[in-house]
């Protein structure tokens, strides 16, 4: 447990969330492309999880990520995961599993803003030979599972939770999930199994931003009514505003009752970057179409920077 981070004040969460958005926006401008809307939806969620929910020790990984050591295998003793950025393993500590790894940029930004990753780490983003990959894999900072084929991470985390239960460990398994993954059948197999095994040491936080690659989720498939569906599967469901840190802290802090706890965090994929609304419903990946558009976003970044100075 990191007493300093758990004692973070509400104002810290707000500031870190703003900085996550600013950092992802800056990166998106300098690369002319990025997963910006995911930063808008998830900034408060990740800031709150890292600062006020997760019980983690300090990072044990290099501040600037190491190069890719090659895939795990019998001939590669050097392979590693990025879990060290979330601190050491210990029975009383939580484990954090990040499933929608297309958001990796947002997680990297969050790790930087909570002091677990050096800002220079982001200079390695999507560079050949780097572990700071475009779509995160288990060697990427903050990642523990190769989750890019979506909906597999929750099952793996379930296995970890079962193992921790069998060993009597008090620490929780916290999974960050995207709502698009609720269209995959495996996700529902996993929820059924978590409930059947009474794994109430699992907390799932769903970033319900209602967006997916093709656009609005309601134009691709239907996962609603999500809360009722999850409850019918045996989960304990809390539905809240994903930009309200206090609500998330309260929901995540409920005493275990035998059911896996699932928080449906309703979020706005344009939150804090209203310009994005002009691009709706195609928000999955932002690449600026004109110099004028980039200039407008640059002006927004300047406003973020001014707010930072003011704060």
């Amino acid at each position, binding site marked *: 447990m990191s007493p300093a981070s758990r004692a973070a004040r509400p104002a810290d969460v707000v500031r870190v969330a703003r900085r996550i958005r600013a950092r992802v926006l800056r990166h998106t401008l300098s690369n002319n492309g990025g997963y910006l809307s995911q930063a808008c939806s998830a900034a408060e969620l990740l800031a709150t999880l890292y600062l006020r929910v997760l019980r983690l020790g300090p990072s044990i990984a290099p501040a600037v990520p190491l190069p890719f050591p090659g895939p795990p295998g019998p001939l590669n003793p050097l392979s590693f995961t990025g879990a060290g950025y979330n601190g050491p393993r210990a029975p009383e500590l939580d484990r954090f599993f990040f499933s929608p790894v297309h958001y990796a940029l947002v997680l990297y930004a969050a790790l930087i803003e909570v002091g677990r990753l050096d800002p220079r780490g982001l200079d390695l983003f999507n560079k050949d030979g780097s572990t700071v990959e475009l779509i995160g894999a288990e060697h990427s900072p903050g990642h523990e599972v190769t989750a890019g084929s979506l909906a*597999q991470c929750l*099952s*793996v985390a379930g*296995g970890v939770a*079962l*193992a921790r239960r069998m060993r009597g460990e008090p620490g929780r398994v916290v999974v960050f999930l995207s709502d698009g993954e609720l269209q995959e059948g495996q996700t529902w197999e996993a929820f059924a199994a978590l409930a059947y095994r009474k794994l109430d040491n699992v907390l799932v936080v769903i970033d319900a931003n209602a967006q997916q690659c093709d656009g609005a989720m309601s134009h691709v498939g239907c996962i609603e009514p999500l809360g009722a569906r999850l409850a019918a599967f045996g989960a304990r469901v809390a539905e809240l505003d994903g930009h309200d840190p206090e609500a998330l802290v309260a929901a995540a802090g409920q005493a275990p009752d035998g059911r896996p706890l699932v928080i449906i965090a309703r979020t706005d994929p344009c939150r804090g970057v209203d310009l994005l609304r002009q691009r709706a419903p195609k928000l999955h990946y932002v690449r600026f179409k004109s110099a004028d558009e980039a200039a407008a976003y640059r002006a927004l970044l300047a406003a973020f920077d001014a707010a930072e100075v003011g704060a």
Partner: protein
Amino acid sequence: MNLVSRPHAGALVRFAKDHPELLVLSADLTASCEADDFRDAYPDRFVTLGMAEQNTVGFAGGLAREGFVPYFHTFAVFLTRRVYDQVAMSVAYPNLRVRLVGFLPGLTTPGGVTHQATDDVALMRALPNLTIVDCGDATDVESLLPAVHEVDGPVYLRLLRGQVPRLFPAGEPLRLGESRELSSGSDLVVLSGSVCTEQAIRAVRALERRGVSVAHRHVSTLKPFGDPELFATLAGARRGVITVENHSVIGGLGSATAEWMAGQGPGVKLVRLGVQDVFAQGASLPYLMAKHGLDARAIVRSAEDLLGGPLGVEPDELTADVTLPDEGRVEDL
């Protein structure tokens, strides 16, 4: 014929006794995969998560990340085709100690194409980090678990169930990476696996009675495919090589042999017997083995082709009992 009843059921319980890290995962086929005795003996180490193989493979990966060694028992088709991406990403990529224990390999079920794993070896061979082991008799089945337990990575197993013939002495366990020499010779090489080995033994005996010198090896470790004695045997083939497998001729034993022969081989013909790139149907094993040409008669026919003429083998010769006398049950080992 010496048949051993449910050899895996007892072997699993015995092996698990001294391996507390061993868990059994099941997806609604517990008795069908001879894991029911384990379930009754070690209920706390038996994990059922419903008929949900994709999720179960993921749980297996998570449990293995925590130091347990999960043995996921179900039918081979459901450990391969049905969950290929899950096996690739949640188990094989991170090189986890998960054991995928597959039953009903190849044509060993009347359940039809939904239950016949005729492409499983091809699929699993394509995944890095996986070890693949096939079983040919009760001795293989009984000695399989200790042979693979220490492998520091995922293992895919093809198990035989029910009444399983004993072809190899109970005191000669399966050894990972080693093929079994069943006869030595220099005219032809026969490589066989799974239930085809029993057929190959019959065929080779008939050929030897006709003066044909045959080097016959039973191959259990299909990946890594690297037994030096097997390669030396192939290198010595004078008239040809026959592979016979309970699987498609694409991607299994025949393919692995062809790949080696193309690079290092002796420059003789290779005949690959097995399912010839077709789907099978629900029917008995003898019927299907005859229809798809992976029985003793097909092996003899291939030998005749390679040697250039008929050998006059009578059908009766190919149905004789080839199993060992009952020389002691495995409980006595």
